[in-house]
């Protein structure tokens, strides 16, 4: 990773963190009614993995956090308008913040049912293969979702047809209140790759460089027609499952311990040591993020609600 790429990932991590903090404030103040699953603590892997994509690749993000959209370059204004159910977003109030979509950047949208993403990703891979292109599909999902049947059917179908799909598992240890060791028989989700004769790799999800390198390698394999890969990025969800989650199922000690491994200060420290990031740059990046968010919130607040009868539109093409 070169210096500018590292800074780009860092900038996106900061922007994502600040945006989620702001969204939490907006939701708690009742200014928006969005149903948001925060990704605080998982920004490193999300920003780093997406940094490895080409502009014409396809992305199926998971339901946790805003970093996917930030890293892919979707304007914050649009994300906020979707969150608030206003005009000016990407889905005209139909899908909320859970269904941010951006065809220009290959962002296909999101499955409301967990695990609905896998067959869609498989289909996008099929499309690339039929048309003979060298794009790839990056499909995020959580440790809990790896227990859906669609995961297994899709891994197998992609493997037998050698479809260019990278499956990236964000293992944050919890499926809402269910710890991974109780939901999942294998220790590492990556082990499941063996069942489909696919390479499976475990990386530290809080280390952007490890994640980036693994995704680059998997994408290369996909583009060269060798088929899918499975990457498991170990991480931790620092906030509750949703904004407002009482989070009563985890001990405070456990959460405290993981805050000490918050990827943002760790990456800052590393970049500072390498001489990539100075204190003044840090404050500049933070101020820049806040200013961007202020502008986006202001834009969102001026947007009108959709016409009520537009609820009847978009069923059929």
């Amino acid at each position: 990773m070169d210096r500018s790429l590292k800074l780009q990932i860092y900038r996106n991590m900061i922007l994502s963190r600040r945006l989620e903090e702001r969204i939490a404030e907006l939701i708690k103040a009742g200014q928006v009614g969005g149903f948001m699953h925060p990704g605080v603590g998982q920004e490193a892997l999300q920003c780093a993995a997406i940094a490895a994509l080409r502009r014409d690749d396809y992305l199926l993000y998971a339901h946790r956090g805003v970093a996917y959209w930030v890293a892919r370059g979707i304007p914050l204004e649009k994300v906020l308008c979707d969150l608030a159910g206003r005009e000016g977003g990407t889905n005209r109030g139909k899908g909320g913040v859970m269904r941010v979509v951006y065809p220009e950047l290959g962002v296909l949208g999101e499955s409301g049912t967990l695990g609905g993403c896998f067959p869609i990703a498989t289909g996008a891979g099929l499309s690339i293969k039929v048309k003979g292109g060298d794009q790839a599909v990056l499909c995020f999902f959580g440790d809990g979702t790896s227990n859906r049947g669609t995961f297994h059917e899709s891994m197998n179908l992609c493997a037998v047809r050698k479809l260019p799909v990278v499956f990236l598992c964000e293992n944050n240890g919890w499926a809402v209140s269910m710890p991974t060791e109780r939901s999942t028989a294998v220790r590492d989700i990556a082990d499941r790759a063996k069942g489909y004769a696919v390479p499976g790799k475990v990386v530290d999800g809080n280390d952007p460089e490890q994640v980036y390198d693994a995704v680059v390698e998997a994408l290369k394999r996909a583009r060269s027609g060798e088929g899918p890969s499975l990457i498991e990025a170990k991480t931790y969800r620092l906030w509750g499952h949703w904004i407002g989650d009482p989070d009563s199922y985890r001990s405070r000690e456990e959460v405290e311990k993981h805050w000490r491994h918050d990827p943002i200060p760790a990456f800052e420290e590393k970049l500072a040591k390498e001489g990539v990031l100075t204190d003044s740059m840090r404050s500049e990046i933070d101020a820049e993020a806040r200013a961007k968010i202020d502008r986006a919130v202001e834009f969102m607040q001026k947007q009108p609600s959709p016409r009520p009868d537009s609820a009847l539109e978009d069923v059929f093409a």
Partner: protein
Amino acid sequence: MRTITYAQGIKEALVEEMRRDPTVILYGEDVANFGGIFRITSGLKEEFGENRVFDTPISENAFVGAGVGAALTGLRPVVELQFADFLFTTGDEIVLKAGMWRYGHGGAYKIPLVVRCPSGAAGVGPEHGQCPEAFFMHTPGLKIVSPSNPADAKGLLKAAIRDDNPVLYFEHKLLYAAKGEISDDPDYLVPLGKAAIAREGDALTLVAISAMVPKALAVADRLAKEGHHIEVIDPRSLCPFDRPAIVESVKKTGKIVVAEESYRTLGVGAEIGAMLMEEALEYLDRPLRRVAIPDVPIPTATVLEQFVIPNEEKIYQACRELLA
């Protein structure tokens, strides 16, 4: 004009549309090497290659959902389910993905997907013999067609493939061998959402769906000999549904019988009945009669199956009751 079978009509539609448009692909269980368990697709892999015609593992969730994903990204997939009943194994992909992905994402994408669903009781029991159209009429975002003859089989499938929306294409297993005339026009299309008047008459409206249509026509012959000239309407598309065609016919006749191979409760006939309450109550001269499967699963043994499946006699009796 030529005479072809219903199965040929389906195959001709596939071949013609695949030749016409390279983004049309065809896949499913046993469709490529074997040519499909009903042998509709034999020879297609040879003509179009393994990239466009291929077999899938037994993974309905993955391959139906992949049809949605492929449709989102520029293909026009035709996915074959071995039996229409298997729609239930892939409910999320059909109802929530094919039916609602476009809507949930504010119309950002089109989903030009066709799912072929061989339907109908043929001695194959409860999980291979259903005509489950009505289940999917209840979900928004899906188009539904059920052709009853070779010409419609071909014209509707070609139109479905060219449509930018997901279409469930129900092909009745017992109709595969049915023969009928068809035009040679390579662009012979039957528009989705347009009912056919299979036979004109004014004594009674008999709405029949899919394999009920030939039975309805036989009933119409029999009644004509008795002096009653009934009208037989074949909706062909169940979504969009040609409401005016039925309303107009009922305005003329005042009596209606619906024959369908669905379960009675909330079946197609129930929807037609409700529609007539709303749009044509004052034209009804008799109560609606539905000839449908009593609310039981479809048994396997022929004697049991034939007891529950609507047949010519049951349709005839329902008509006679209203004509009395």
